[in-house]
């Protein structure tokens, strides 16, 4: 079936969404055109506004369209505590599950020397400024348990220590729902090291 150039373009553009191949892009395009023109207009408008207006929180660097994000604005949050994470999605995950009441700092990545990503590319200059001027007394390092995440945690730990502030690393263990037999040896050895009284 021949599709008009604009429909083809729509299908092609929808494929920039994660997990969307040609078939699902086509399904989405027809759904919007045949059944939900209003939804399509709203989506287009929201996408456009988001792409133009959403930037980074000037304090924690997470994605938001205001100068400060809702967490940074919230007076009830404990601003003596900063949890450092790699991505905005990590903030969402921790917010949903942890009952954490401090602030965050979002690196938007991790140190990756081979890709030329250094300390300032992940905002550590901004973090250092905040640690010097603010009343922070503990930094929680919640970067991923990869070598790059560890290197990043280590680098920040050094920086934080030089400023006389405490830092701690979140514990890692065997993921819930997984089987020991299929867990890699490094994860197992960390889980054993970080064991707790039962």
């Amino acid at each position: 079936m021949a599709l008009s150039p604009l429909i083809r373009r729509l299908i092609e553009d929808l494929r920039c969404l994660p997990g969307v191949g040609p078939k699902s892009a086509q399904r989405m395009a027809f759904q919007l055109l045949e059944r939900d023109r209003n939804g399509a207009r709203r989506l287009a408008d929201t996408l456009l506004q988001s792409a133009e207006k959403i930037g980074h929180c000037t304090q924690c660097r997470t994605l938001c369209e205001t100068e400060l994000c809702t967490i940074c604005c919230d007076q009830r949050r404990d601003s003596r505590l900063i949890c450092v994470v790699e991505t905005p999605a990590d903030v969402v995950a921790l917010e949903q599950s942890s009952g954490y009441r401090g602030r965050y700092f979002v690196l938007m990545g991790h140190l990756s020397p081979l890709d030329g990503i250094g300390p300032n590319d992940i905002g550590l200059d901004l973090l250092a400024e905040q640690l010097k001027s603010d009343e922070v007394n503990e930094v929680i390092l919640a970067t991923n348990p990869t070598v790059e995440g560890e290197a990043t945690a280590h680098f920040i730990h050094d920086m934080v220590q030089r400023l006389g502030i405490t830092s701690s690393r979140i514990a890692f263990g065997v993921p819930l729902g997984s089987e020991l037999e299929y867990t890699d040896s490094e994860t197992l050895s960390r889980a054993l090291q970080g064991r707790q009284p039962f």
Partner: protein
Amino acid sequence: MPRTSLQPAYLLHHRPYRETSSILELFTAEYGRVAVVAKGVRRKKSRLQPLLQLYRPLLLSWRGRGPLYSLDQAEENGAMHSLAGISMMSGFYINELLVRLLHHEDAYPALYATYELLLQQLSQGDIGAELEWLLRQFELRLLHDLGYGLNLEYEVETGEPLQPEQRYHYLPEQGAFYWQESGVGVPLHGATLLGLASGELNESRSRREAKQLMRRMLASLLGDKPLNSRELIRQMM
């Protein structure tokens, strides 16, 4: 290259590829540096992702046609070398050197063995000043295996054996020349070159000179683009 079966290998670098895959730069015992695509490895439930870490001894199978192969299978091949702090950063430095300087699919078996040994040494906690010397030995092996081995025996123009307390200038791809006011190249003492040859370099003067020498040697291969990991290590010191 036919389909390989569980080859000893280390991951040197990985970068995202498409939505859920990664391109891995590997250092393998038999095939040298190899690039593979690891399909779906960035999916949440990927079983391979926790395995495919830097500094972890791996057994990998890949197939397809080069230069970019497809990763088939991965298993761990012993405990991970757990590098911490400055050793971890030094691991990045070594990996960056290998990714920048090794050609794909040239075998470097001796270098591979040296790399593995170095990771073991780096994982032995705080090794202090020994760290620098371990890196120098690795750089020396790397230069040698790339075909830029150093001339550590004779003065170039006269063919006279190097003398420990004599001063020289070392020129990359040529060798040591007797020191003179207007000489170019890295200024150093004979003891430094003799120490590099014998694998024993204990004086701090020699170690300092060896560092300058290796830096110059590597710079002539690396060109203008600086080593990012070296900058990172400098910021940590």
